[in-house]
């Protein structure tokens, strides 16, 4: 199984900026951050980074999206006041770099890259995907909009009528967002190429939060209409037709992770980890063992001092940065993978114990730090 990360997933996973001021938490977090970032992090933790693909097109597009959004934001917030303008530039500088740090991390540490022949991609896009989608999206709906006479005013009555009308429809039609733009067509062509590269031996998923790729939620009323609502149903007609014709299956990151877990179990991946877990058992202070147990599955990290007192509890994604700026850390426990970069920082900060869910196989074992996995304690 291979998962191609689509631009919307990569961008959503990259936007999270948090800071504390007088105990209050300020956060700039994409609505889909948790699921997109969680997906990439978990794949990495489970040792599946080699199955996650971020192509250069997607990486470039994600950078482009961030860049354009920041520029538009600067324009919209422009002011003649020089100091306020300076503040705005500082703010965009911080937010942009924070997002790019995450994006670089996903590209470098959570995924792999496959070569893409751009000529072949253009050919597939122009000659295969575009005409196919052009044809099948002709008779699709973006939402169901029942026409209720305007003299019926009360909202409850309008809602009731809407419900009745939708229920009585013989068929709701095919719900799809409409013809995708050039950027999405490029990614669809790349997914097709990857599917063909593996000659159908691998299932190819496209992780996306964009309705051009995944099953579309059935919605009543225009999205501009304040009374619009979702029925809870998903229409996967177009997604399925694309999968049948081109081999790639677009879906939500959470759903794909569930599928990966299912496949891993079938292939004995989980059993393999359990066997490794039994290799050695090491006695550690009670606080370390308890914290490790508490952190499992949270993608969080806890920093302890020499007295085994908690200094900080933070998301794993912020660990490297936080560790660099924190003094007197004795032990770091986190629900993630011990990487060489983290070991280097820990060595510099004179940390004695690094305890995590998994340990990367390429680590050079340092003399002054104990590297332990949850399974070993």
């Amino acid at each position: 199984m291979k998962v191609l990360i689509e631009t919307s997933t990569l961008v959503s996973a990259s936007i999270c900026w948090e800071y504390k001021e007088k105990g209050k938490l300020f956060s700039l977090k994409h609505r889909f951050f948790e699921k997109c970032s969680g997906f990439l992090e978990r794949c990495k933790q489970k040792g599946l980074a080699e199955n996650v693909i971020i192509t250069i097109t997607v990486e470039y597009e994600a950078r482009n999206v961030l860049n354009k959004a920041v520029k538009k934001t600067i324009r919209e917030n422009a002011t003649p006041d020089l100091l306020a303008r300076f503040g705005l530039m500082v703010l965009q500088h911080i937010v942009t770099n924070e997002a790019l740090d995450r994006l670089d991390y996903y590209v470098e540490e959570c995924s792999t890259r496959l070569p893409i022949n751009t000529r072949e991609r253009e050919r597939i896009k122009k000659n295969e995907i575009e005409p196919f989608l052009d044809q099948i999206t002709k008779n699709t709906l973006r939402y169901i909009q029942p026409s209720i006479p305007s003299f019926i005013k009360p909202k409850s009555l309008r809602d009731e009528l809407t419900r009745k009308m939708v229920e009585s429809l013989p068929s709701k039609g095919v719900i799809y967002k409409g013809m995708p733009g050039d950027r999405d067509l490029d990614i669809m062509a790349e997914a097709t190429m990857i599917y063909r590269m593996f000659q159908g031996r691998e299932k190819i998923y496209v992780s996306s939060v964009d309705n051009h790729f995944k099953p579309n939620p059935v919605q009543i009323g225009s999205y501009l209409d304040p009374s619009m609502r979702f029925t809870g149903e998903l229409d996967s007609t177009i997604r399925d037709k694309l999968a049948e014709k081109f081999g790639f299956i677009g879906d939500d990151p959470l759903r794909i992770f569930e599928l990966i877990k299912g496949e891993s179990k079938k292939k004995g991946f989980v059993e393999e980890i359990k066997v490794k877990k039994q290799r050695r058992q090491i006695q550690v202070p009670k606080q370390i063992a308890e914290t490790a147990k508490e952190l499992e599955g949270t993608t969080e990290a806890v920093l302890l001092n020499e007295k085994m007192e908690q200094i900080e509890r933070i998301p794993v994604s912020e660990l490297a940065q936080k560790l660099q700026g924190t003094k007197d850390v004795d032990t770091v426990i986190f629900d993630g993978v011990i990487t060489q970069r983290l070991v280097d920082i820990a060595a510099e900060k004179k940390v004695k114990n690094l305890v995590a869910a998994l340990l990367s196989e390429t680590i050079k074992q340092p003399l002054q730090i104990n590297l332990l996995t949850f399974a070993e304690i």
Partner: protein
Amino acid sequence: MRSYKQELTNIEKMLHDFLECGMIDTKRLSIMDNIIEWSEKDQIRVVNSSYLPLNAQTSFFGAIRNIHISMKSMKEKLRLASIEHENPTTAQLALELMPSFFNLVPYLDPFFNENVYHKKVENVSKFSRILFRKAKYFGFSEDVMSQLSAAGVTKSQIKSFIESFSKNVALELDIEEEASSSLESTD
């Protein structure tokens, strides 16, 4: 004429000297003040350069700000290292960071001395980003809170930025329907 290249060369020489004699002479650290001061003023100069396209403005601002923050932090770390007798390591790290400063010189000196800016501003962004990452990795960076308060960024500015950025990300991704309120802010 001010020359970032000349100042950086002087700093690099000073760091080499520190490494050779195995200790940091804090009296010589004032050599870094010129760059710290210039880069502080040059940030405002970029913000005030309304003739520049926004793309060039953000690239040059990012570059000069990264130089300012990294250099300021480097000076402070070297000073502390001298007190804590961790001399060679910090000086070595500082020396390793120097090529990343030099990468930016061919773009910055012509811009700030002759108002000539290189059309390939993407190179400025690229090298600026390399400097940022390396400096952050070596610990020559400043925390967000200090940066915001030093720049006088108000809460209303942050709020307005967040709202606007939220809308623009959704528009750029073309997922405005899926993410009608795509960013969350908590306070």
